[in-house]
């Protein structure tokens, strides 16, 4: 354990520089992730501008209760993640382990609720290309909405699956005592990734679920 605390890779001057490099690397990766999700957000914005009524109609097929619940679950997981980072900083082993485990649990609950929603969409015939049964004048643009819905929530869910896996690895390493207040960079940068995935959902909730809740 003490060895890890003192471990500074040879390319760095000191632990502080090593920590700064890890942090900067993750922020740069997240900036590329902003552009990755940004393409889909841009497509959504453009098509919502072109077909506002159809997108409002399609939005009303989504379950606000499940979407809202999932938002609370994901915000809760961000709280447990930041408490895990806090535990690592303070050297509280039990806080770190328990909060990482809770983060994985809440992430899994989110995916479970998401799977229920996707199944409802399948049963309602709202899956573009595979089983889309809406008819009428604006069925085409509504199919476009659901294509974007599955693309955005799907890619978001994939990020969460990866996040849960990474947190699992961090949990295993923390269990073996790899992290100390002096060295816990992997915990810090995993926290950054997890919070980013939370932020994506913070924007998906109003864009997908809340537009067109009222009006014709």
């Amino acid at each position, binding site marked *: 354990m003490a060895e890890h605390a003192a471990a500074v890779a040879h390319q760095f001057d000191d632990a502080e520089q090593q920590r700064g490099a890890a*942090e900067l690397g993750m922020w740069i990766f997240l900036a590329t992730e902003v552009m990755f999700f*940004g393409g889909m957000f*841009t497509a959504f*914005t*453009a098509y919502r501008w072109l077909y506002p009524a159809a997108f409002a109609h399609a939005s009303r097929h989504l379950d606000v209760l499940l979407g809202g619940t999932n938002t*609370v679950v994901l915000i809760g997981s961000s709280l447990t993640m930041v408490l895990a980072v806090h535990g690592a900083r303070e050297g509280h082993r039990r806080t770190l382990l328990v909060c990482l485990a809770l983060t994985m649990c809440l992430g899994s609950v989110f995916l479970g609720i998401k799977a229920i929603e996707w199944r409802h969409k399948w049963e309602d015939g709202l899956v573009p290309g595979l089983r889309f049964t809406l008819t009428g004048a604006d069925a085409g643009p509504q199919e476009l909405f659901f294509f974007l819905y599955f693309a955005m929530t799907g890619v978001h869910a994939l990020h969460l699956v990866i996040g849960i896996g990474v947190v699992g690895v961090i949990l295993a390493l923390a269990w073996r005592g790899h992290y100390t207040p002096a060295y816990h960079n992997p915990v810090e940068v995993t926290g950054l990734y997890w919070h980013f995935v939370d932020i994506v959902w913070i*924007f998906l909730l*109003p864009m997908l679920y809340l537009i067109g809740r009222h009006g014709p």
Partner: protein
Amino acid sequence: MAHSAVRLYVAVFAALLVLTVATVTVSYVDLGPASVVVALAIAFTKAVLVVLFFMHLRESSGLIWVVAGGGFFWLAILIGLTMSDVVTRGWLPVGVK
């Protein structure tokens, strides 16, 4: 110090919950075109809270602020320039037979 940090995280969590309830509630009120602005303003506020406190940007170096700001800036270019095309296509009758 340690306890005040935990209190801050819980306070941010509570603020995020309140804003989530607020955005869901207000979506059932007909505000006309302003409803999109309100929904995105609340989402943006929530994102800023997460970035500043959960991602510790508040304590981060200027270099990290530049990268975080750069991500947002390039997103604004992507959406802004794309929409400047989409929104203005109908303004002039170019190519209409």
